[in-house]
């Protein structure tokens, strides 16, 4: 059924190139995660305000980010905006697409986390003379980030995996792009993608395990 002779040496000779790709993949994921968290906090605050336009912006963003394929979001960040004459490089397009997706999902996580924090805390802060912003910043926000820390690592893993969609917008320097290039060159499809799969697995595993360690250190009572 599956008669194929694996030639691991041929594929492993290309491992250094793939590891370079893995570095780019990590880069995209980490930057998109940091930006995603910032935007998600903004979106969460927008949702808390009584301003209609701000509410609308946040809701639209979150709805699109959560209810359309990540592939669509990345494709739009490249080919979609280009039809308005705005050109982003493949790297930037991928970064924008993933950041957009991250922010939408994280904003929902944050909203869930906020629900777990009683309103009375913010009001107690204000009764001590803090402004609403101060009480959010010093009382609510730290707790919110703590509660949503593990869901955030989920999103980080998802961000790593989403980088593989970069090939649709012409990205060839990330792990998946590099693998696809090498595949075109050698046709050693199964070996190359198996190695790529292992690298992806190791990266995400390291991230989830280290997140657990960090959580255990940061959040002990």
């Amino acid at each position: 059924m599956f008669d194929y002779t694996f030639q691991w040496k041929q594929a492993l000779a290309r491992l250094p190139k793939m590891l370079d790709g893995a570095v780019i993949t990590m880069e995209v994921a980490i930057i998109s995660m940091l930006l995603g968290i910032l935007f998600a906090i903004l979106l969460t605050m927008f949702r808390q305000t009584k301003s209609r336009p701000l509410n609308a912006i946040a809701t639209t963003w979150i709805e699109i980010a959560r209810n359309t394929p990540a592939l669509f979001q990345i494709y739009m960040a490249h080919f979609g905006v280009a039809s308005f004459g705005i050109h982003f490089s493949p790297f930037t397009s991928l970064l924008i697409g993933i950041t957009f997706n991250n922010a939408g999902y994280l904003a929902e996580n944050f909203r869930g986390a906020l629900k777990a924090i009683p309103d009375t805390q913010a009001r107690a802060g204000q009764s001590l003379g803090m402004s609403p912003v101060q009480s959010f910043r010093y009382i609510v926000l730290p707790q919110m980030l703590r509660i949503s820390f593990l869901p955030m690592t989920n999103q980080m893993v998802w961000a790593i995996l989403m980088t593989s969609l970069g090939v649709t917008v012409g990205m060839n320097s990330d792990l998946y792009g590099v693998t696809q290039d090498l595949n075109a060159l050698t046709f050693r499809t199964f070996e190359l993608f198996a190695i790529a799969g292992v690298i992806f697995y190791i990266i995400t595993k390291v991230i989830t395990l280290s997140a657990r360690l960090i959580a255990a250190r940061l959040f002990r009572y």
Partner: protein
Amino acid sequence: MKKYTLTALLLAAAGFAGTAAQADKLDDIISSGKLRCAVVLDFPPMGMRDENNEPIGFDVDYCNDLAAALGVEAEIVETPFPERIPALMSNRVDVGVASTSDTLERAKTVGFSIPYFAFEMVVTAAEGTDITSFESMKGHTVGAVAGTYEAIALEEYVNEWGDGSEFRPYQTQADVFLALAQGQLDATVSTSTVAQANVKSGNFGGIEVVASAPFDIDYVGLFAKRDEYGFLNYLDLFVNQQIRTGRYDELYEKWVGGDVPSLTVPGAYR
């Protein structure tokens, strides 16, 4: 006595199973009554879809001819460029009729027939750029379809050129021309047939074929599993017969038009 009969029966069964397992790909195709071809349907005029969404093109006709020669029914399996080999290795197709360049690197993995078509490469540029030749692409952002002969060759040139030159592989021919029309790419290298078809289609404005690319002639072969000698031999003879009977010229005229490229290398066998 009974024991012996049973043993004899088992041995006979094993014998039959043995011969069955030795049937090669060619036998499998003939007995299954179906030939499954991997064809790229995003590569006009070699493979594309008509208004009824039915696959048409040079490669599609070629697959039908091959099936007719084998006396079986043809089944076109659409495979994008990067997925041709997985489709073959996972046994979803029997043969690739997918405009596949027969590079030595690839021939380490799959078996190629003698060339059944040859491409010439041209540069298509967006109007308003100063690109008039292959060399003047230096310092520009250029692209091609990931996994193709021209993409591999172009990327090598771009890496050599350096300073500001950038190479972007897109997943489909349509995306490449879309990016070119949008101004995300300054130029692309593709087969002359594809370039002409896309410029003529009028789907993408502001692009024109400006020069030919100095790559070696891109010979493409049919491909099958490397160890299926019986089948690969058949494919070689089939390609030879297509040319001998004038069917190659006929198909070329139908889908491409113009001078029919020679499929032989002067001064060499095969």
